[in-house]
């Protein structure tokens, strides 16, 4: 069947819209914090271009702010982003239409939202290059553009809490989580993951609660009795 490119583009943009609305304030927030911590506008935006990983960028700013050595900052970025190893192991299976080079490029854009979009799309569609790159590049543009806006405008959003922005990402990720509830072992996996992650977070704090919690949930699925196809 031929690919309807404009339908792929429209689907990608439709799926991106709520995410872009959620990500934009964080981009502005990141940019404002970055220049507040003494980064130049070039450095603030350059970090978004290079890492393209908001949570780790904000964490790095915290560490830079308290004068941490380069190695400590870079290692914490690596730790926070370590979850992507699991993302690429899973999402790579859905990129059959991509050439090796296209895959290598695609993985650069494998953020939390684009990983979620690939997995969700793969449930009932072939993930096309048009769909993936429309989604991922648009999101990249939003992240860089809002980082720049925040860096230029300084402390534009004085208090994200006043607008309820602080709950947008958790709500977004929870809603995305529930989209997977028909998968086998969904509830045991989610509960195990929640338990391990909460324990690690309460005892040690971030960032290993993500990777260890994920491994806890995955372990449940690995040791559970096999029962046919996963979907």
């Amino acid at each position, binding site marked *: 069947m031929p690919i309807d490119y404009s339908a792929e583009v429209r689907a990608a943009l439709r799926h991106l819209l*709520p995410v872009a*609305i959620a990500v934009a304030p964080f981009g502005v927030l990141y940019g404002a914090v970055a220049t507040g911590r003494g980064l130049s506008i070039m*450095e603030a935006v*350059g*970090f978004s271009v*290079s890492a393209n990983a908001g949570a*780790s960028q904000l964490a*790095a700013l915290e560490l*830079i702010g308290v004068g941490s050595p*380069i190695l400590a*900052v*870079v290692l914490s*970025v*690596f730790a926070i*982003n370590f*979850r*992507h*190893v*699991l*993302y*690429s*192991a*899973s999402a*790579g*299976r859905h990129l059959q239409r991509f050439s090796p080079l296209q*895959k290598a490029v695609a*993985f650069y854009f494998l953020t939390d939202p684009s990983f*979620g979009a690939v*997995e969700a799309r793969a449930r009932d569609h072939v993930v096309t290059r048009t769909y993936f790159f429309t989604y991922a590049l648009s999101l990249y543009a939003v992240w860089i553009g809002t980082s720049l806006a925040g860096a230029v405008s300084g402390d534009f959003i004085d208090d994200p809490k006043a*607008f*309820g*922005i*602080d*709950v*947008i*990402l*958790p*709500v977004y*990720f*929870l*809603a995305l*989580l529930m989209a*997977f509830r028909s*998968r086998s*072992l969904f509830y045991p*996996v*989610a509960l195990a*993951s929640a338990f391990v*992650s*909460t324990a690690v*977070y309460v005892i040690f704090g*971030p960032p290993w609660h993500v990777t260890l*919690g*994920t491994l806890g949930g*995955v372990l449940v*699925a*690995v040791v*559970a009795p*096999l029962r046919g196809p*996963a979907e």
Partner: protein
Amino acid sequence: MSDLWVIILLSGLLTYVTRIGGYLIVARAGKLSPRMEAGLNAVPAAVLTTIVVPSLVDGTWAERLIVLACLVLSLRLPLIGVIAIGAGAAALAHAAGY
């Protein structure tokens, strides 16, 4: 090169390593066993759960209730509507001092 640019470029490089690493490991391992496959299928649910944990642990009771209410709403309403309701409720709760 300034320390900041070293941090920026090294962070980008290491982040890319994490983003392609899992794929390379699986590609080397060849065909996956059914258990590995089951484990990978569990990755999205497992990781999305962990990302929400800090907001539930650190949040006020009002924030926790709002986030959990949105979880229920997300079973019925489109995502954008749930986010709007959640952000609106959180803004009201914060304005009221919760």
